[in-house]
C-alpha cells in the first residue's frame, strides 16, 4: 500500500520537518496533507482519504487531544491510526494519550523510528507495502465529503 498521511502541527517548520522525515523513512507514499491545528485537521480528514494522522498536542484553536476525541467519536474515523508527535516526557500524560488508542513518538525522532511505528500503528507489514490498496482503517471521508465532527 502507499500511505496517505496527514500531519497536524501549528509550526510550519515542524510540519515541513516531519514531512521530510516521512519521505526519508522509505515508506511508500501516496500523499502528505498538512493542517495547522485540530480544526483544520478535521477539515482535512473530511476532504482526503487518510491512512494515518501524525498529530501534535499543543496547538491553538483546537489542540491535539480535542481533535483526537472528535476523531474517535466519529464512526468513520474512530479506527483511524494516530501517532502523537510531541515533546511530552511525562509517563502519566503519555499513558493517558495511549489510552485513547494512539501511538506516541517524541520529538525529535529518526526516519527509521517513524517507519517502524507507522507500520506498527497501521498494522501494515513490509510485505503489504507492495500492494497499492488503501488501508481499511483509513478515513472514508473522501467518498462523499460528508464527515461532520
Amino acid at each position: 500500500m502507499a500511505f496517505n498521511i496527514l500531519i497536524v502541527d501549528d509550526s510550519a517548520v515542524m510540519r515541513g520537518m516531519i514531512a521530510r522525515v516521512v519521505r526519508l523513512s522509505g515508506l511508500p507514499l501516496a500523499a502528505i496533507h498538512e493542517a495547522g491545528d485540530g480544526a483544520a485537521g478535521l477539515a482535512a480528514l473530511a476532504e482526503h482519504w487518510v491512512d494515518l494522522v501524525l498529530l501534535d498536542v499543543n496547538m491553538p484553536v483546537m489542540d491535539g487531544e480535542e481533535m483526537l476525541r472528535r476523531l474517535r467519536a466519529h464512526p468513520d474515523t474512530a479506527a483511524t491510526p494516530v501517532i502523537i508527535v510531541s515533546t511530552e516526557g511525562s509517563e502519566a500524560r503519555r499513558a493517558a494519550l495511549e489510552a485513547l488508542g494512539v501511538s506516541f513518538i517524541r520529538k525529535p525522532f529518526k526516519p527509521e523510528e517513524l517507519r517502524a511505528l507507522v507500520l506498527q500503528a497501521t498494522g501494515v507489514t513490509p510485505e503489504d507495502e507492495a500492494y497499492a490498496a488503501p488501508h481499511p482503517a483509513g478515513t472514508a471521508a473522501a467518498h462523499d465529503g460528508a464527515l461532520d465532527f
Partner: protein
Amino acid sequence: MPLPTPPERLLLTTARSTFESLALLFAEPLAGPPGGPLGDSFGDPLGDGPLGAGAVAARVAFAGEAAGRALGGALTLAVSADVAAALAENMLGAAGPGGPGPEARRDAVGEVANVVCGHLVSAAAGPAAVFRLAAPAAVPAGAPAGPWHAWLDVEGGRAWAALDAPDALFAAGATA
C-alpha cells in the same frame, strides 16, 4: 569560564542534544557575557546585544505538577541570525535563494525552544511529573530570564538559553 551549576549543565546538555538531533547543528559550551543578551528587561534589545542584528528569541512557558507541588516557569532561547537561518534551513532541508524568511526562522527557533523545554522539564522533574507546555511565543517585555543561563557556540554562531524555574523543579526530579 565558571563551572555551570547542575541546572545549567542540564540546560547545556539538553540544548546541545536538541540542536544536533533536530537540526544537525553542533553546539559547544561558551563563556558569554553575564546576564545574557537581553539585558534586565526583555524588549527589543537583541540588535544591540552580543547576538548581533537579526537575532531571534522565543520563550516557552510551562506549568504542571511534580512531587505534589504546582510548578511553573519558562525556557527562553535566543540565537544569532546565522544560527536562526541554519536552524530553519536544516529543519526544512531546503536552502533556497536567500534562505528561509523571517517567519520560518522565528518558527524554527520556537520549535527548538519547545523541544529543549519539554526534554529539560521532564529530565529535571522526572517522568512522573505532569507538565503542559505553552506554544512558543515572542519574549514579552519585562519577562524574567531566570536564574540559570547557558551560552553556546553553534558552528560559529551564538545561542543563549535561560531557564526561569524554581529550585523545586529539580528537587522534584531528585525525589522521583
